[in-house]
């Protein structure tokens, strides 16, 4: 079985498209084994 998550999160993209530190960033890689409760990604609140 499979679970697909789709969600909005902060993106600090400025109009010129460069990302900023408050971007949501995934902290997993493709193929990683994850467990319930483990962080998939974080953002920083500026």
């Amino acid at each position, binding site marked *: 079985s499979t679970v697909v998550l*789709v*969600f*909005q999160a902060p993106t600090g993209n400025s109009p010129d498209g460069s990302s900023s530190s408050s971007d949501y960033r995934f902290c997993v890689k493709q193929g990683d084994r*994850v467990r319930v*409760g483990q962080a998939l*990604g974080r953002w920083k609140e500026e």
Partner: protein
Amino acid sequence: SSSINNIRSNRRTFSSLGGGSGGGGTGDSNGNAFLLPGATVATILMLGALHGRRLYEDKKIEEKRERGIELEFHQDVKASFLGILPLRSISRAWGSLTSVEIPVWMRPFVYKAWSRAFHSNLEEAKLPLEEYASLRDFFVRSLKEGCRPIDPDPRCLVSPVDGTVLRFGELKESRGMIEQVKGHSYSVPALLGTNSLLPMVPEGKDESGEEAVGDKGDKSWLRVSLASPKLRGSISASPMKGLYYCVIYLRPGDYHRIHSPADWNALVRRHFAGRLFPVNERATRTIKNLYVENERVVLEGIWKQGFMALAAVGATNIGSIQLFIEPELRTNKPKKKLFPTEPPEERVYDPQGQGVKLEKGKEVGVFNMG
């Protein structure tokens, strides 16, 4: 010709004796004697050959992967063959089989064998093995307290399940498409439902200047239609939000309860009665629109950062998706005819606009066999 004559005369002799079943070395009874072992050996050889071929193909795939070659979508005969099988009925039969109660003394042996075959961790099971009456009960077992600590950081989203990350990323220029495998993608509205709450334009962006996610000309992307206009208002237009996705595959041996990835309110539930193709790695490479075709339950709502959706997609061996917030929901029900374009069964949770509050890490539902 002499040996054929011989056999014929033998056969005649045998029939004139009234075909007695006694042995005595008549050619025909010998032939019969070889039939069963012969068929058994032939079957074993065939299964062995199939398994050998599977191992060889897996080895080749592994070698490609090690060389950094990403496998592409490639429909094959097996995928087409799966398309004509009655997978839902097979899944329900599997569910009935696994619901058979197992004698108490046998249960530890059966569950240990399962855990050895599918790499499950028996130590984490909440109850003693003897207390799981059937394999199906064992499959949806809870875990001991503390086995899955929830990341306390308020600025993070946590995994709702145990599994393997297949895909993840931001839906930016990709026009709301998620790559199932290199060479084939499916659209997020097709996965979540064409009347999803999904705000497909990242908020805070100027629609006219930049290319919106989804083409303005193609209305089906941008149409946000909700059961009631009031719901629409509940998704606040806050600046600088992006749309992200993550696809997680659960192996048969994984813990199969689904937890909440964050504090959010589930506003709408959509149930798509669909196919039940396998969703293993091979199937993602060979079956088109796997997650859009398969039976699934979608929960949509809002969290402090905006839109949130969780789609639980079933598979052949896991056709049941149960929601603890809606125990009466049944999936994988017998249907006379299954129309691929059959609209999903939708329910807006009360109270409207608030829905059901789900806390980060709490149990939301469970996948089950059959």
